[in-house]
């Protein structure tokens, strides 16, 4: 108790000088390692933060509403499967080179050639420079959420990369440690395991407010206890969303602010459908019915009115095309679980299941223990395995090495359901960290294709709704809860683009556009 009093006293002292004016000091935050700086390889939250600050995209999600607004583009036209963008003529890269249509073409080509990160969004897209400030994209197959996908196409400085690429065709080495964008922040040092330091780009085409941080230190892989202590001592500003709820609660009780980013994703226990006994649909249904959803929801509550998630109603998060209504909230049903298990081809007494959890996300260990006890109630043995993220994302490339159950948080990377579900369930997407299910189902594939090609909202709604029903029937995944990211923050910062719904982008990580944050002077 004494420690707590001290900390509280320390924090009170820190709060005592309430920020009167935001003046652009240093912003310190953390994320899970590694920080991938190459925009063509970026895939997780840390990478997104880097991508959205060092690079810009043609369009941005509209703040506080649906749809997209021009950003590097000044306007666009859609003609069937051809999208033509006029670029702003006042944009320069951080190197001083002006932004040209050929940079956009180069960025698409580089992305698809490397085939990593979000490149799957741009498969079959041909970009052509019509003139120096006009670029057109032709899609091989219709893809209705294409505009949304463009928020994942960071524009790279072609001339700079060409000058520095050495023997490599696409300059991977250069771009993995240097920025080559137009973004509001310039990378001054980058160590993917430790820290990226960025400073304000004074020549940013939209200008950067005085109050926005001058310097940003994004640190990787800090321990929860370290973050807890640093924030209490006023030496850290925004904690990653991966802090356990207890720690976030303790910080909030000590006076830290809580930013909630309403996401477009969920928490999943993904079953490897290629590995016995999970290749039997009834076994999968049994395990999905046995999971204690209510307790999972209790575990993520932070304060009485802030929680890191809400109950799942099916395979698609509430608020997206095809989501089920609240009457379909998932609950534990042991009776049903036993019925399904009885029809499963495998003998439950001989089953031993691996339940993995990501070492950087301590909360998942508790879900593992919860699920293990649920399985024990069914008479099924299980083993808990702790996997660091780097090891996990490597292991899933081979279904044999993929654990029976993988716990994953996934978000729609462009805000569109296609980018949540296609990468998880289409048979061609199997074997990534988003798809450890390795699902191969023709019906699912068909609905996914229909969802991305249908041109009207009603048709997309129908396709995703059918997909939802099919997925609930196939049970490749246990849909834990729809999630919300909670960030504990010091009182030195203000981040309306994360926490204020009227200014939020509705796209995970984009709220961390530092140019829209405010920090007191240090």
């Amino acid at each position, binding site marked *: 108790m004494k*420690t707590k009093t001290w900390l509280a006293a320390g924090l009170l002292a820190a709060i005592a000088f309430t920020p009167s004016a935001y003046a652009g000091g240093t912003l310190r935050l953390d994320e899970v390692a590694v920080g991938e700086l190459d925009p063509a390889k970026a895939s997780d939250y840390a990478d997104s933060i880097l991508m959205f600050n060092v690079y810009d995209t043609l369009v941005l999600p509209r703040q506080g509403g649906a749809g997209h607004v021009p950003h590097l583009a000044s306007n666009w036209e859609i003609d069937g499967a051809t999208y033509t963008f006029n670029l702003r003529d006042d944009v320069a890269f951080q190197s001083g080179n002006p932004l040209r249509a050929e940079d956009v073409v180069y960025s698409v080509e580089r992305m698809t050639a490397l085939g990593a990160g979000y490149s799957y969004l741009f498969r079959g897209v041909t970009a052509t420079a019509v003139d120096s400030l006009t670029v057109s994209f032709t899609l091989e197959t219709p893809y209705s959420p294409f505009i949304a996908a463009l928020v994942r196409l960071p524009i790279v400085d072609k001339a700079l990369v060409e000058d520095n690429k050495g023997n490599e065709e696409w300059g991977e080495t250069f771009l993995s440690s240097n920025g080559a964008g137009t973004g509001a922040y310039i990378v001054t040092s980058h160590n993917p395991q430790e820290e990226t330091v960025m400073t304000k780009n004074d020549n940013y085409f939209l200008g950067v407010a005085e109050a926005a941080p001058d310097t940003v230190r994004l640190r990787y892989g800090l321990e929860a*206890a370290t973050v807890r202590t640093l924030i209490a001592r006023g030496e850290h500003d925004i904690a990653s969303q991966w802090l*356990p709820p207890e720690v976030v609660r303790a910080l909030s009780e000590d006076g830290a602010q809580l930013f909630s980013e309403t996401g477009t994703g969920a928490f999943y226990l993904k079953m490897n459908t290629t590995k016995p006994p999970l290749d039997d649909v009834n076994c999968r249904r049994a395990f999905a019915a046995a999971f204690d959803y209510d307790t999972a929801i209790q575990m993520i509550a932070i304060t009485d009115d802030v929680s890191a998630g809400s109950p799942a109603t099916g395979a698609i998060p509430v608020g997206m095309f095809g989501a089920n209504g609240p009457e379909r909230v998932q609950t534990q049903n042991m009776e049903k679980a036993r019925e399904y298990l009885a029809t499963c081809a495998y003998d439950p007494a001989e089953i031993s299941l691996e339940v993995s959890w990501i070492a950087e996300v301590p909360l998942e260990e*508790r879900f593992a*223990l919860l699920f293990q006890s649920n399985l*024990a109630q069914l008479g099924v043995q299980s083993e808990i395995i702790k996997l660091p993220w780097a090891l996990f994302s490597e292991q899933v490339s081979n279904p044999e090495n993929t654990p029976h159950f993988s716990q994953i948080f996934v978000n729609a990377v462009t805000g569109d359901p296609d980018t949540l579900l296609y990468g998880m369930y289409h048979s061609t997407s199997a074997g990534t960290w988003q798809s450890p299910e390795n699902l191969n189902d023709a019906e699912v594939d068909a609905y996914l294709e229909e969802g991305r090609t249908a041109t009207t909202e009603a048709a997309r709604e129908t396709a995703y709704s059918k997909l939802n029903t099919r997925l609930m029937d196939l049970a490749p995944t246990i849909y834990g809860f729809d999630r919300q990211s909670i960030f504990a923050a010091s009182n030195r910062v203000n981040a309306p683009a994360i926490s204020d719904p009227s200014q939020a982008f509705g796209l995970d990580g984009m709220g961390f556009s530092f140019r829209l944050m405010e920090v007191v002077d240090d």
Partner: protein
Amino acid sequence: MIRTLRIVGQNPLSLLGLILVALVVLAAALAPWISPFPSHNGAVVDFVYANQGPTARNWMGTDLVGRDILSRILYAYQISLFLSLVVLAIAPPVGTLVGLLAGYMGGWVETILMRIVDVFLSIPPLVLAIAMMGVLEPTLTNAMLAVTVMWWPWYARLVYSLARSEREEGYVLAAEVIGASTAHITFREILPNCLPAIITKMTLDMGFVIIIASSLSFLGLGVQPPTPDLGSMVAEGARYLPDSWWLTVFPGLAILVAVFGFNLLGDGLRDLLGVDE
């Protein structure tokens, strides 16, 4: 026996050691009967009581999934003691055999055996264990294997140096003169004279093996959940400092008590058996 107890009794520190060791051993042996929540040893969660400090119900508080920490510590002692006993049942005999042969026979036997020992001793013990655990799967058996592999060379080294000096003693020469076999001389003449030192080292090592095993599981390389283990309890709790201090402090104290007890007892035995440092 009475003399032993009296001598131990005269040294209050070794008496304390004996009491602590007795407590730890009793706690482990009686865990199923004395622990308040015996089922918390396994795959059980009880979120109603999760993450609570010490209360009348849970004297040492509960962990993040509501398991009683006291119960888990008692069961963790079982694992720690079992692991230490297995390691100390394998490592000292192997090391002693190697040391005796090398020390008594000399020549190429000595050269080969002791160079092998040197190779093992040149690798920092924890690094060797981590490397082994990295290759193998993290299980209790493999943890025991890893600790055993890093432990036997120390006994080989100890017995070797003892055997070397005993080799020149009059009683060994006398045995050689009357034509005793190598086996007889090493095991019946030299070994009994090395035993006090070996036993003392084993007692001291109980504590060190517990520490090393806990370090391995602290790093996530030892016993896997839900099996309780002191090292992993400390590791898990460390994330929630300083707020949920009971998660770390009590398992940490439990390690301290066991290691401290065995060390004090080992010191006492050393005095009792007249072993030089």
